[in-house]
């Protein structure tokens, strides 16, 4: 069964076309891992979540069209991240206004700024956090994010606007104007 799942021959109308599970895994592992990592900010947890996503893909591989795999992976990765947090109560939802400012101040520096932004994004409540990750890691437009997360486009846009405003304010206060 594993061999079959991992070596599907290309046939007309085949749902997975010529891709094998291994090909899909190889091509998408960084994407899935990164979504989990930027959401959870914990490598081990991200690896655990990413592995669960791919195992779920493996179980359902024959029923997913090749052109839908990326969408499916993003969707399942997003859901799994939320489930992970809720199950473990790792990150209680924090109102945006209560998100603390970065503790280290100093001259703007790319690496430092990146870390601060990563930390700030990770401190957002779950849904806005996911929206930000899908927008800026995956470069998805609001309507695409809305489809992945199954929410109205206007809700996605609202999350983006509020999160960006908060980030700008907090980064601006601690590190000076973003250039």
């Amino acid at each position, binding site marked *: *069964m*594993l*061999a079959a*799942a*991992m070596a599907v021959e290309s046939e007309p109308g085949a749902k997975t076309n010529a891709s094998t*599970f*291994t090909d899909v*895994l*190889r091509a998408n*592992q*960084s*994407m*899935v*891992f*990164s979504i989990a*990592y*930027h959401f959870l900010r914990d*490598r081990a947890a991200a*690896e655990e979540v*990413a*592995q669960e996503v*791919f*195992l779920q893909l*493996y*179980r359902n591989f024959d029923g997913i069209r090749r052109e839908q795999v990326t969408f499916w992976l993003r969707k399942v990765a997003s859901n799994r991240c939320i489930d992970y947090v809720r199950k473990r109560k790792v990150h209680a939802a924090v109102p945006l206004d209560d998100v603390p400012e970065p503790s280290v101040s100093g001259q703007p520096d*790319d690496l430092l*700024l*990146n*870390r601060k*932004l*990563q930390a700030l*994004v990770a401190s957002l409540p779950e849904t806005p956090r996911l929206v*930000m*990750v899908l927008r*800026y*890691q995956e*470069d998805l437009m609001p309507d695409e994010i809305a489809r992945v997360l199954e929410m109205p486009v206007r809700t996605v846009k609202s999350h983006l606007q509020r999160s*960006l405003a908060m*980030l*700008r304010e907090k*980064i601006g206060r601690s590190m000076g*104007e*973003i*250039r």
Partner: protein
Amino acid sequence: MDDLERQLDLECHLKDALTRKQAPDWFEAKVLAAAARETSAPAGFWQRLMAGARLRWASAVLASAAVLASGLAWQHERAVRERTEGEAAKAQLQLALKVTRVKLRKIGQKLDQMERN
């Protein structure tokens, strides 16, 4: 810098900050090993055979056929089971070799670095 420019700058920085990270070295091997373990043997051949059996006549023929079928079924099941276990073993081996290579490579790099210093 006006608001739009600041917005675009922040978005640019966010893309940079949230750029994709490489999955861990042996992530692929671990997933494949886990997937191989999940693969389970199919439902017994006998169950499928008996569920469809309706014939009452020629019991001797049926008995002979059953003996022959059981032999074939056993072989088939064994082949399927072996394939499943073999793929799982292969995945485990690949994982072990990957871990080995990564660690040895890191040691080599560390040695090179020290020699350069």
